[in-house]
């Protein structure tokens, strides 16, 4: 990908994503942390667009910002007496070491391997193709995923149901 727009966009988005992600870890206030996480998600969505994955980019915004970030916010507001701080526990140094190690290894592998780079251009349109694949080749995993979602919903409701909740509608 050599055209100027993409390159410029990539560097801006990369800086945004990584910067926001680093701040998420560094910032002390949990709500700020979630807001920065949203920025990071948006940055990743932008990166998807530079990778010509328009459908995934939109889904990223829809699910991660519109749903998961909101769930995190809900988790925060529903636990009012818990701390709002986002500080590290006693695992700080081991975790840091491990994270650096893992990321370093992956970066090393990324540069060390000679990938079979294809010469094709970006995808023209992915939504239709993904739809076809999902309902054809990956139909079974697709159904399983929907069952998973359903059971997750039921599980979540069962978990937060207060003990002795009245049966049926009020």
């Amino acid at each position, binding site marked *: 990908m050599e055209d100027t727009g993409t390159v410029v966009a990539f560097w801006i988005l990369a800086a945004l994503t990584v910067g926001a992600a680093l701040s998420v870890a560094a910032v002390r206030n949990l709500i700020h942390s979630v807001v920065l996480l949203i920025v990071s998600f948006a940055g990743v969505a932008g990166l998807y667009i530079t990778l010509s994955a328009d459908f995934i980019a939109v889904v990223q915004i829809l699910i991660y910002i519109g749903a998961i970030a909101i769930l995190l916010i809900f988790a925060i507001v529903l636990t*009012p*007496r818990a701390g709002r701080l986002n500080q590290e526990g006693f695992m700080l140094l081991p975790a840091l070491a491990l994270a650096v190690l893992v990321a370093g290894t992956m970066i090393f592998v990324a540069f060390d391997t000679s990938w079979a780079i294809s010469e094709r251009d970006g995808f023209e349109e992915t939504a239709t193709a993904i739809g076809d694949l999902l309902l054809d080749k990956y139909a079974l995993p697709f159904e399983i995923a929907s069952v998973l979602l359903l059971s997750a919903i039921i599980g979540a*409701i069962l978990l937060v*149901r207060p003990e002795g*909740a009245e049966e049926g509608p009020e």
Partner: protein
Amino acid sequence: MTIKSEPFVVNVGPQHPSTHGVFRLRLTLDGEKIIDADMIMGYLHRSMEKLAEERTYTQNIPFTDRTDYLAAMTGNLAYVIAVEKLMNIEVPERAQFLRTIMAELQRIASHSMAIGIFANDCGAWQTPVMHMFRDREKILDLFEMACGARLTLNYMRIGGVSRDIPDEWMPQAHKLLKELPKRFAEYEDLLLSNEIIIARSRGVGVLTPEQAIAYSVSGPMLRGSGVAWDIRKADPYAAYDKLDFEIAVGTNGDCYDRFVIRLAELRQSLYMLEQALDMMPSGPVHQRLGTSTVQPGTQPIAPLAFRPPVGEAYGRIESPRGELGYYIVSDGGPSPFRFHIRSPSFINLTPLKLMAIGSTVADAIVILGSVDIVVGEVDR
């Protein structure tokens, strides 16, 4: 679905769009559900009852305007009835009819406002209020013709009314009476079966008749709980014993009932007004209070100072908000020894806590709107 949360205290008022003045409601919430409600009054306290003890009986009439400023006529009326009882004054027939007409016009004006504000509290952004203002303006015009003021009228006098109505008054009143039924039909069409109003107010803020009587609420609040009680019928004053009308009562005691009762009372008031205008006798509109105190002049103005006999009197009327009573104790001096107002807004407000607990914040506002308080009267 209930997710337990911390109790959460919200102050509605004293500065809040829906408290109808400076009234404060401290709600303790669990989520949006009210688990406790405290009413904190007194932000508009002007010490009227004490001030009145320093002024003469006639000077006190303007104070009564300023308690329930949305229904100044009825405030005047209740007070002068109390003083007349104290002094045993017979009021001329024409004055009685004028008082009745003014009180009923005032009821239409006040109920219009109450209905509009109630719809506003249900969330209809200003539109009902503005439409109701249309009628109210016309009525205020009539008041202006009769006594020169629009809001604080000071029209009633001890022994009658301050002056007779001008000649143009009657035709204009008849014109208004022709116009109003169309308007009322419009309001009934728009509000009575409005899905959202029904959803918001039915089954909300229920007060059973036992509770209503125990809290000694009155007016549309009491009738909303299904108790057919109206002082105009139970203890007629002015010219009400000569008029035919019906009492509107509800069956469920909820906010919707209070609201439909006000709508129905608009019609009843109109019916009474039609009769009263037809039956209006001629004659003096003021009873002179003894020769020694009469002031010269063509206008029958009550004397500024007089000394009623020692005693006490309680004058009560059905104001738009309920039983408005003035309790006056005289020690024979020129000003009352004790002056107490039984203000319906204040007493109707007391079961608010009872009605609000268990409902949501939005309901509390609707309930407050259905009580129809005037903070000037609550705090006096």
